């Protein structure tokens, strides 16, 4: 995947931010499962909230609500949606 200036890892987004998936780290422990759940190129993902203790993160991918730890989000590269909801 070619890098892009606006690309960040998913763990850096704040609640309320939305982004499109750019790539999954090839060594991500959940790579297979994340792909199957829809973390594919171009998929829109939205950060809903952090858990009260700061982690994990509540995400919305399509119509699915998921919880993932920030450490597992580090392997997901995304491109922020400008002015995302």
């Amino acid at each position, binding site marked *: 995947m070619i890098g892009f200036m606006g690309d960040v890892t998913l763990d850096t987004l704040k609640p309320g931010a939305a982004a499109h998936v750019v790539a999954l780290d090839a060594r*991500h*422990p*959940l*790579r*297979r*499962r*994340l*792909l*199957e*759940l*829809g973390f*594919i*190129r171009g*998929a829109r993902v939205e950060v*809903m*909230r*952090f*858990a*009260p*203790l*700061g*982690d*994990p993160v*509540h995400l919305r991918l*399509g*119509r*699915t*609500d*998921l*919880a*993932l*730890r920030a*450490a*597992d989000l580090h392997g997901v590269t995304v491109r922020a949606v400008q002015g995302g909801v």
Partner: protein
Amino acid sequence: MTASPPPSPRLPTAPRVDEVACAATVARLRAHREPRVLVVGNPNTGKSTLINAVAGTHLKVGNWSGVTVEKREAHLKRGEQTIHLLDLPGAYSLSPHTPEELITRTALLDEAPDVLLNVVDAGNLERNLYLTLQLLEFRVPLTIALNLVDEARNKGLEVDAGALSAQLGVPVVETVGVKSLGTAGLLDATLSGAQVGAVLRYPDAIEAAAAELEGRMVNLSTLPPHAHRYLALSLLEGDPSLRGRLSATGHTDLLDAADAHRAALELAGLDPLIEIAEARYARAGEIARLAVPQAELKLTLTEKLDKLALHPWLGIPIFLALVLTVFRLTFTVAAPFVDLIGGPLQDVASGWAAGLLGWAPLLKDIVVGAIIPGVGTVLSFLPTLLVLYLAMSFLEDSGYMARAAFLADRSMRGLGLDGRAFIPLILGFGCNVPAVYATRTLERKSDRVLVSMILPFMSCSARLPVYVIFSAALFPHAGAWIVWSMYVLGMAVAFAFAWVLRKTSLPAEGSGVLLELPPYRFPAWKVMWTHAARRTASFAKRARTTVLATVAVVWVLLSIPAVSGQAFGEVAPAQSLFGRVSQAISPVFAPLGFGNWQATGALVPGFIAKEVVVGTLGQIYLGEEAKRAAPLGFAQGVEQTALATWNAVKTSVQALPTLIALPSFGADSSAEQKTPLAAALARAFTPAAGLAYLVFVLLYTPCVATIGAMQAEHGRRVAWLTVAYEMGIAWVAGLIVYQIARHFL
């Protein structure tokens, strides 16, 4: 609701369906005497509720052999045909990630399915279709149950079942499982209409590789023909568990060929895993857009509830309040029935047995001394279990359990566990038995074993009576503190033990945590009730043997005289073999401050159920006759039973309003203050020894019911290793507490 007629598949991509073969399958199915229907779907699609509605009382639940995953099946009569329905565990995909998903994949390969019934959540079409597209790679006729259409409608989603059916080339039946809508015709549609649907076409390079692999499978009789395409694609995806399966069955040539294809594809810049997932999602998205007209999405109830349940400040207090409510339910609602079974009912049964068996004293003793208390012990667990299982089903089926795991996740991380591990540990405070079963929600085997092994340190409600009586006897002014510190100590030991296990024998496997937070749903009462009743009954079935055997052994030991001149069954505890054995063991406890045979002896029956420790202490210290059951007339017995049952119901119902009140620790201990047993204990134990005794009782062993549950879930070895470890830990902890406390108390 009606089934949309299966039109001839509209294939956006080159059709691979052999129409002739397809028609032949359907014909075979109609004629088939005992067609096997496999039900497959994502988790949280309301699949079990739907299948409950379809199969009703015919649904039999057991375990898949060798694993602790529920096997749900039914044999349904439909005219001449017997339909064999097999409801497979929920799966997000067919490359398994959990034991449940592995079962589902294995069944699809090995159970010779005649037809597949795919349950799809109408409110989350795209992700559900990922699995559907994978299922269509099996050359088996398929029907879709488009479930939860009412919920989708509330979200503002109106799914066009006809369009969906046209796109996939299989019939689609709209259903609402909770209301039994569409369920009547579902089986008919499944059997008469199912079609081998349209197959998704992947990029050419992938198709070419898959075709080559399929060609190799033609001559391999061990690989079921209906699964060739699925197997080829999974091999290209590099599914690790499939590799394991195929290399174990000697298909190394096939694996080598797959590896060569993968390497070639990667060289060409194609990662088959990504290509396949993207192709499936592209198609799933396309179908979803065609089947669901763009709608204004409404703010759902789930979003509103989550604002509260996952609130930064309120989330955790709400969680704790819910947990507290569950425990108060077990204490207030179940406890009167526990007392009823352990007390009056057992007395009545003993009385009747004594009356009926007067002519055979030894038989009478066995029945009254071992069988009735044994059965009584098993039965007295049931009210607590039923209440806890009901609460668990409610929290699970409503969707809250996933939120609890989300809230608790951070706190479990130090042990290499995820938030889901919190649930069994919390349940352990009520009763360790359901907690052991609750470890099934964990994905990894090592996590399940680890949590089960530390569970018994969570102080279950049966241990409370022991704390209460000792606090009343030795620490009348600090009762609440003593009780509280036992709970905290138990948790501390549990976490320390888990840490040690992680470092030594059960290292954390893999990493990464992923939870779905499903929409909140109001659980169907019937489903909740059947779940809870079934789990409770299965406990009774399996605990029966273990508990009965243990009670019988203790009874025999208590009956065998250890001094000459006494008859079997006629000895005082001190002179029985039991007394002698306790005497022999007791020096072991001298460094803990309670090296007398009475204290030691009471620990043995505590193995059966912790609250029995109190009863045995009473028996030994107060010289109470070991329940000499007086013969009881039938009518008297009935009267006593009715009265006691009425009292239990009354107490339970009257206690309901107190559920909303705050709990008051220690209130009970002051009430017990003056009992003769407390006075006797105050004379027999120094405060330091009493404290050490409590610590020992807290930690020393899971009760037999828990051991039985652990054995069923994780095997004999884990169960008895746990007992051994915990004995050792309890002894050391008791020693430390006594040696320190005796200088201060």
